[in-house]
């Protein structure tokens, strides 16, 4: 079955609108994706029919709300191949909170002087800064996995780098260069060295079939809003035995078994890590988003994006020639649908501004990956990213807008 992007587009109301009198060309899904009608409807149906706080009330709609949220947990877990969805899937407000949870709970309990945390130079700040914050308190060492010239992980020195390491902070796919990393290989080496792997799967779970058990990692973090779901919902998956042994992160209602005058006893998983009223409607929206993605088939989604990325790399290179640099792996199959572009002599901010006149939405900036920017030798890039609703018309509009921007600033 061929992937029908036209049919997909019709499910996304925002793509019907015009901007500046032109068709909206949305190429910023790596930052946040658009939402299909089914997600919007699932959330409003929740508010219109069963809105109530979860895990407390015994009345019918409160039970329905609880069931809907717990159903979403199971759905999320199955989608990513979690062996024990009911206990291993923790809902957070975003992937950043998920990664902070791991650092603040597992990290604080297990890291100290003499230990090391190994971070790849591809990482987003969300998988860097929490480790720096913890380092200030715990005094461990931070090391980096370097990159090759085409922004792939350089693993030549991995055995030496892993010596004494307790945590490997690893992205499954770069949000800047689209680089896919050898997660299984690194995880096997990390485990041999006695380290756990904390996977930033934000750009991976929305775009490729994911099986955390098969990847072998210990924790994986991702966000709902990058996978057709709403903002305000993130996921942390972790191996049950690790989560079980970890102290709670945030304290408050919902995460306790008992509170006394002399202290408290935390709740069982997953409640232990879900203090306060959770984002209930958002879990339901995420459930609907996963239903939508599975309806398309994640293999088909991946294939569509590889095809589109290959087409875009070819089209843009033909159109712009030597003036254009696309950072990262040259082979479309080695990357996700993320193109970080540079045009000689034109700042990404200016490029993107002119492209906005074409209603082409790309993102200029450092994409919260300043260490990677430094390695790439740039301050910023203009990034276009593809998803299920993008088609070759979008690529053509991107090429047209980029060529116009290049000529606007040519002097």
């Amino acid at each position, binding site marked *: 079955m061929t992937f029908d992007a036209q049919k997909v587009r019709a499910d996304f109301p925002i793509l019907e609108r015009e901007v500046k009198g032109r068709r909206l060309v949305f190429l910023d899904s790596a930052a946040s994706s658009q939402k299909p009608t089914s997600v919007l409807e699932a959330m409003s149906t929740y508010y219109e029919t069963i809105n109530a706080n979860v895990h407390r009330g015994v009345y019918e709609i409160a039970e329905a709300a609880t069931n809907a949220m717990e159903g979403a947990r199971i759905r999320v877990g199955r989608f990513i191949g979690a062996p024990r969805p009911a206990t291993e899937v923790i809902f957070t407000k975003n992937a950043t909170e998920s990664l902070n949870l791991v650092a603040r709970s597992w990290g604080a309990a297990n890291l100290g002087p003499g230990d090391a945390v190994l971070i790849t130079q591809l990482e987003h700040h969300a998988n860097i800064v929490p480790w720096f914050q913890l380092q200030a308190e715990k005094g461990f060492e931070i090391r980096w996995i370097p990159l090759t010239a085409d922004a792939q992980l350089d693993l030549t020195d991995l055995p030496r780098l892993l010596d004494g390491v307790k945590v490997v902070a690893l992205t499954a796919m770069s949000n800047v260069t689209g680089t896919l990393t050898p997660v299984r290989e690194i995880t096997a080496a990390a485990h041999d060295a006695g380290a756990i792997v904390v996977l930033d799967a934000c750009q991976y779970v929305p775009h490729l079939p994911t099986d955390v058990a098969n990847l072998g990692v210990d924790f994986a973090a991702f966000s709902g809003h990058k996978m057709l779901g709403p903002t305000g919902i993130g996921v942390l998956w972790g191996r049950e035995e690790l989560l079980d042994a970890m102290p709670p992160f945030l304290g408050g209602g919902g995460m306790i078994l008992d509170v006394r005058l002399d202290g408290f006893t935390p709740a069982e998983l997953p409640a232990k890590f879900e203090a306060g009223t959770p984002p209930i409607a958002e879990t339901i929206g995420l459930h609907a988003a996963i239903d939508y993605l599975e309806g398309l088939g994640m293999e088909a989604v991946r294939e569509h994006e590889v095809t589109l990325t290959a087409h875009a790399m070819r089209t843009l290179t033909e159109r712009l020639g030597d003036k254009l640099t696309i950072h990262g792996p040259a082979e479309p199959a080695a990357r996700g649908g993320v193109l970080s572009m540079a045009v000689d002599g034109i*700042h990404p*901010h200016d490029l993107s501004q002119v492209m906005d006149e074409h209603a082409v939405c790309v993102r200029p900036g450092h994409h919260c990956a300043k260490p990677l920017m430094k390695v790439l030798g740039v301050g910023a890039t203009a990034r276009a990213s593809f998803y299920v609703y993008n088609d070759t018309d979008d690529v053509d509009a991107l090429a047209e807008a980029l060529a116009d921007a290049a000529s*606007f600033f040519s002097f």
Partner: protein
Amino acid sequence: MPGLEDLYREIILDHYRNPRNRGELEVPPAHRAEGFNPLCGDEIVVFLDLDDAGTVTDIRIGGTGCSISQSSASMMSAAVKGKTVAEVEDLTKAFKAMMSVHESSLDAEGESGEEIPDEAALAAFEEVKLGDLEALRGVVKFPVRIKCATLAWNTLAQGISEAQESA
């Protein structure tokens, strides 16, 4: 709807292509200040010579950035050279008043309409001659870019205040 010509005026592009006072000064005696735009990763370095009377005797600009931040830095360097710190402060206030958006325009519906410049803030400094810098007035219609235009000015203010503290 604001168009690109409001943003990329010819004089701005000229300063971008041919930046004035580009380079470095020896530190010390010069003072060096660094400014970052956390949104886009742009970086401006201002080198500043102040004499005992508090006059900016020389200024150089380093760093990288977009056409708006670079041209603003270039125009700023030309405008403040030879001015006293007090004059520079007035100029900075006038420039930032031109770059400030009235809060009421943020309250409007989501559609990007006309941004309303803060007339009251502008009026307070209308006697200050902005010269070439007037060309940057259109930036206020592109609110995300305001930080690009003010980056050099904030860095200069930081440099002057550090220079005065160390004097």
